[in-house]
């Protein structure tokens, strides 16, 4: 048993231990005994779990060790000018936000004032002071057997504690912006967020990960969601890591009866980006819609893992993920729907559409259904195609150059997902970046058109 385990896991680089020993006394809440203990336990768990290899079924498509198992340091405090960050401030003038640079809160750009009574939006560092026991409990209660979650628990630096009381709908969007600056030595940060919505509460959350700088960087993020019955969360995620930046993002959540969770993720860039979701549906009438699009090119991998557990019947879940693979890019999708015994009248769908633009790209897709109830509607499907030659010719025959025609068609493929972003400023950022990435000299007209339609 042990022998098998060793082939599936690598021992973490000793530099992790050195970094943890050095940092532990300075991490948020280190003076608080229960919190410090949770971190110690997290680190011990990380060492025991080790770094997964591709022999581990869950990491079959992904060589994470090359990115994550090497000496890394938390970044030293970086001063960024406002104009570097400004393009990523989303949500309009009324938005509230917390901005982190390399795991450190930037109070000068953060704004959480004037929130209604009972709403809590605070940084993890602040929560470690105001509610150390609750935080320790939240950190400790998530043990998903995943080494990077344990690593996050040990090192959690940036991140936030967010709570909305029952019945409260927050009109203004809330943005969590995580900026990573790569340095000469590879740097790491470990944002941890806890988000709790009371019965019938409602929030638009804009989660943005941005990589600035050339050096290697790893962002290892964990978000714990809890939606009470009838709560609503619109969750827009824009991920723009730098070329040498990697992002491992895990979302763990539970959805109460009648809750609605809508998440849309747009990813452009990054050496390795793995988005993992583990969501539990705990009552009837839940509506859970996850969508995403990523455009990995040479030296880039986008890896999407979804596990949805229908633990109660009468709910609906839908996964809709798209990949556009350019050059030597690599896309992987593994989606699992588990319908637990007795979860009758479950509707669960999953779709993974891939556009492969080169012969050198790689697409892996692994849909899985595990159904232990008989009265359910479930489906999954995966497609992998090239650009439609007829469509390409049609556009070119009207004078549109090949590269622009290609960009228009790729955009059309991705636009459906981008259109699902709830916030117009998030949509505009995703659009602008996608169009710039696709090249072909397409201009803002594309953005205007899309936004014009949305308006």
């Amino acid at each position, binding site marked *: 048993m042990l022998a098998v385990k060793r082939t599936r896991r690598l021992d973490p680089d000793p530099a992790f231990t050195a970094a943890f020993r050095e940092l532990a006394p300075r991490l948020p809440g280190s003076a608080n005994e229960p919190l410090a203990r949770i971190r110690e336990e997290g680190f011990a768990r990380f060492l025991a779990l080790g770094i997964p290899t591709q022999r581990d079924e869950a990491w079959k498509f992904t060589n994470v060790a090359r990115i994550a198992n090497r000496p890394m340091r938390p970044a030293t405090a970086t001063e960024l000018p406002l104009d570097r960050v400004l393009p990523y401030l989303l949500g309009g003038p009324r938005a509230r936000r917390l901005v982190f640079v390399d795991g450190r809160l930037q109070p000068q750009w953060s704004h959480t004032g004037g929130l209604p009574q009972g709403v809590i939006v605070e940084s993890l560092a602040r929560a470690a002071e105001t509610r150390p026991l609750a935080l320790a409990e939240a950190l400790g209660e998530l043990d998903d057997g995943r080494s990077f979650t344990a690593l996050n628990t040990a090192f959690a630096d940036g991140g936030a504690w967010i709570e909305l009381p029952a019945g409260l709908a927050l009109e203004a969007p809330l943005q969590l912006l995580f900026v990573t600056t790569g340095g000469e030595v590879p740097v790491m940060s470990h944002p941890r967020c806890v988000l709790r919505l009371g019965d019938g509460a409602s929030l638009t959350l804009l989660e943005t990960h941005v990589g600035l700088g050339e050096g290697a960087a790893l962002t290892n993020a964990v978000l714990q969601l809890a939606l009470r019955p009838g709560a609503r969360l619109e969750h827009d995620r824009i991920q723009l890591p730098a070329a040498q930046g990697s992002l491992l993002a895990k979302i763990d959540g539970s959805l109460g009866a009648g809750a609605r969770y809508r998440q849309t993720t747009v990813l452009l860039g990054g050496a390795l980006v793995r988005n993992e979701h583990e969501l539990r549906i705990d009552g009837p009438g839940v509506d859970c819609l996850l969508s995403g699009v990523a455009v990995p090119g040479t030296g880039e991998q986008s890896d999407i893992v979804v596990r949805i557990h229908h633990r109660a019947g009468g709910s609906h879940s839908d996964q809709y993920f798209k990949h556009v693979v350019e050059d030597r890019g690599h896309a992987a999708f593994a989606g699992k729907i588990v319908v637990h015994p007795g979860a009758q009248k479950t509707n669960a769908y999953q779709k993974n559409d891939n556009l492969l633009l080169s012969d050198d790209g790689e697409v892996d897709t692994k849909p899985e259904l595990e159904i232990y109830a008989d009265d359910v509607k479930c489906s999954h499907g995966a497609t992998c195609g090239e650009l439609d030659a007829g469509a390409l*010719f*049609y556009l*070119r025959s*009207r*004078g549109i150059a090949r590269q622009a025609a290609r960009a228009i*068609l790729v955009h059309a*493929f991705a636009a*459906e997902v981008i259109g699902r972003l709830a916030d117009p400023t998030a949509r505009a950022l995703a659009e602008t970046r996608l169009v710039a990435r696709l090249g072909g000299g397409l201009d803002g007209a594309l953005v205007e058109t899309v936004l014009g339609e949305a308006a």
Partner: protein
Amino acid sequence: MLTIENLQVSVEGKPILKGLSLTVEAGRVHAIMGPNGSGKSTLAHVLAGREGYEVTGGNVRFGDEDLLALEPEERAHAGLFLAMQYPVEIPGVANMYFLRQAINAICKARGQDEIPAAEFMRKVREQARLLGIGEELLKRDLNAGFSGGEKKRNEILQMALLEPRLCILDETDSGLDIDALRTVADGVNRLRSPERAFLVITHYQRLLDYIVPDVVHIMADGRIQRTGGPELARELEERGYEGLLGTKLAA
């Protein structure tokens, strides 16, 4: 304007055009008629630069350029336009956005400034109105879910906006009701000018009643078999391909 000499084209190793020659002069309307499968659409596609056709012989000059050496977009820039028999549906690309990109691309290639948004809108609306294309169709995705007739009108709309020198119409009349045929034919006739030439591929005399051709060609077995004036089309209508060309070529 267009000179095709002894053009030979194969598709997947099968010869389709077998030595086709044709000359089109500026200001003239040429009609091409021919039995199903005789190679009319193949000719149109080869002229527009679609992939999948192997030119095994002959040459084509467009103005003073070697047409077959140009990329499809370069042919459009040079003033060639093909209204397709089966326009492609492109979901996710708004018709209006597409028109704007196409016009700007052509302006740019011709060394002109891009047209301002307001002027573009005015032009599109005016042409759309003349062709009976509603505002709603302009906002929809390009050809996606358009009816057969709507697609054909949309082709002519593009043709009117892009102002080509050579317009190739591949069965633009098929799928049109009688009123739409009239509207589309009027649209084509409005574009007739001494600088512009037309190559109208059709199966029916009815279109040629509206768009009166200067020259009519009968194509069969990958070649032009007969060339004449408008009376040739009427003769064809009466006698059929068999009567006109004999049993072998009409097949």
